[in-house]
């Protein structure tokens, strides 16, 4: 048997998260509110807060979808996804997949990828910058057999649509998006370079392959060899970037 307080709290949660009407019989309304109207104050606040959290993380998806479609997506998502975290900013990890399954994605097939980008950006924003190896140390330590560990403040994304340009577009730019704006795969690196701003680098396919191989723990020589189409000049450019960005946090022989 739940205690009276336990029973009341369960009823409150079902009223707000599931729309169960039983709570009204157990309360007195404040002001000139009836019990049902008083409960409704709390019921209305719940989707509003979660929608605000989704809107903050998925700002560009919101802009692309417009209020009506974005709020509809939020409504459906919230109905099936209670928040289990103490932090509202953790809410929405499955929202990209939810967007991908909506009819909106027929017209805008890049939505799921755009949402994945926005989620990854938010996650990285809250990560501590890692200490990257200085260029000279990296150059001295790295050989074909050494394993280069990417710093924790970095994430590699392989997306089926080009979304970085859409994300970067000026807010005021309201020219309609066309298939040529999103068609084609995109490989991105999001990272912090020793301090808090988040940087985004568009990666050619071979660079992405090489970095993914490093991320998996392959030695540098094998990682470069696994990157189809990475010629010597490309390898040099990549290495220069690694040295200058501080992306590599450690080198193991």
């Amino acid at each position, binding site marked *: 048997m739940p205690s*009276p*307080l336990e029973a009341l709290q369960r009823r409150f949660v079902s009223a*707000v998260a599931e729309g169960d009407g039983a709570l009204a019989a157990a309360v*007195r309304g*404040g002001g*000139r509110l009836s019990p049902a109207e008083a409960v409704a104050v*709390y019921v209305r606040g719940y989707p509003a*807060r979660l929608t605000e959290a989704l809107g903050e993380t998925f700002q560009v998806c919101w802009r692309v979808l417009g209020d009506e479609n974005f709020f509809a997506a939020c409504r459906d998502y919230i109905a099936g996804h209670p928040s*289990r975290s103490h932090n509202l900013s953790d809410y929405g990890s499955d929202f990209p997949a939810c967007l991908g399954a909506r009819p909106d994605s027929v017209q805008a097939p890049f939505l799921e990828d755009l949402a994945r980008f926005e989620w990854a950006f938010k996650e990285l924003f809250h*990560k501590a910058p890692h200490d990257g190896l200085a260029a000279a140390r990296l150059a001295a330590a790295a050989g074909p057999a050494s394993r280069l560990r990417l710093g924790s403040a970095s994430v590699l994304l392989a997306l089926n649509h080009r979304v970085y340009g859409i994300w970067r577009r000026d807010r005021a730019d309201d020219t309609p998006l066309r298939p040529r704006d999103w068609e084609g795969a995109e490989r991105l690196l999001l990272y912090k370079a020793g301090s808090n701003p988040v940087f985004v680098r568009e990666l050619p396919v071979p660079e992405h392959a090489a970095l993914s191989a490093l991320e998996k723990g392959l030695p540098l020589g094998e990682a470069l060899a696994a990157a189809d189409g990475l010629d010597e000049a490309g390898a040099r450019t990549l290495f220069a970037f690694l040295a200058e960005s501080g992306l590599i946090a450690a080198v193991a022989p």
Partner: protein
Amino acid sequence: MRDADGRGLVGVGLRSAHFPRLLGCPRTPVRWFEALSENYMDSEGRPLEVLLKIREDYPVALHGVSLSVGGVEGPRPGYLARLKRLAERAEPFLITDHLCFTGAHASNLHDLLPLPYTEEAVRVVAANVGRAQDALGRTIALENVSSYLTYPESEMAEWEFLTAVARRAGCKILLDVNNIYVSAKNHDFSAEIYIDAVPAKLVAQIHLGGYSDMGTFLFDTHSRAPTQPVWDLYRRAIRRLSGAPVLIEWDEDVPPWETLEAQAVKAAALREEALAQPA
């Protein structure tokens, strides 16, 4: 937090909209900042960097919204450890949260939900405060919340509940004067009796904020400056609670820094004025 101009006790909520301004080290009568714990306890990024920078120059209090101290399941696993880690870095002069519950572990409603004023609720809160204070290694303060409904099973008045909790749990009170006014209007009790009944030695901080009049009830929106009746209650409260730091809370439609600062100046001036009057 006391200084020569007598305004040393007034602080404001730290909001990201004001970060650029504050990082320019402005001359300001604001003497301390309140940071929302959840905005910093999961972030190692820019927000924490700014908080720690501000902390170099000002005292800071940590104010949480997710402890769910009245929740029958107790604080969420891991929550207190994260809060403790943040406290170790930010070294706040006070850690506070709300006298309410916020939902269930499996479904956090992210709201400050009212408790019934019962002996069972006092027991549950006291046990949860005990866990929190043990984990944090310090005393916390709980804030009275605004509410839009009450429960017939309540066995005592809200101020009796608040005081009983603080005594039983061995914690302090964060007295939100705006919330007292909102709930007094909504539930038809005397805000003055409430203010006078709370033991001064239990009050560790005072909040002042703005509500919205929805026509059929008052809604605690923190989206505007305190209204005149709230200032009047504050004047009454501050004479007994003159040692408590005062905070201007403004969370929604956050105004320009100058507007916020002006409210802090007003709170400090009213305090001086009230203390200068003979009892």
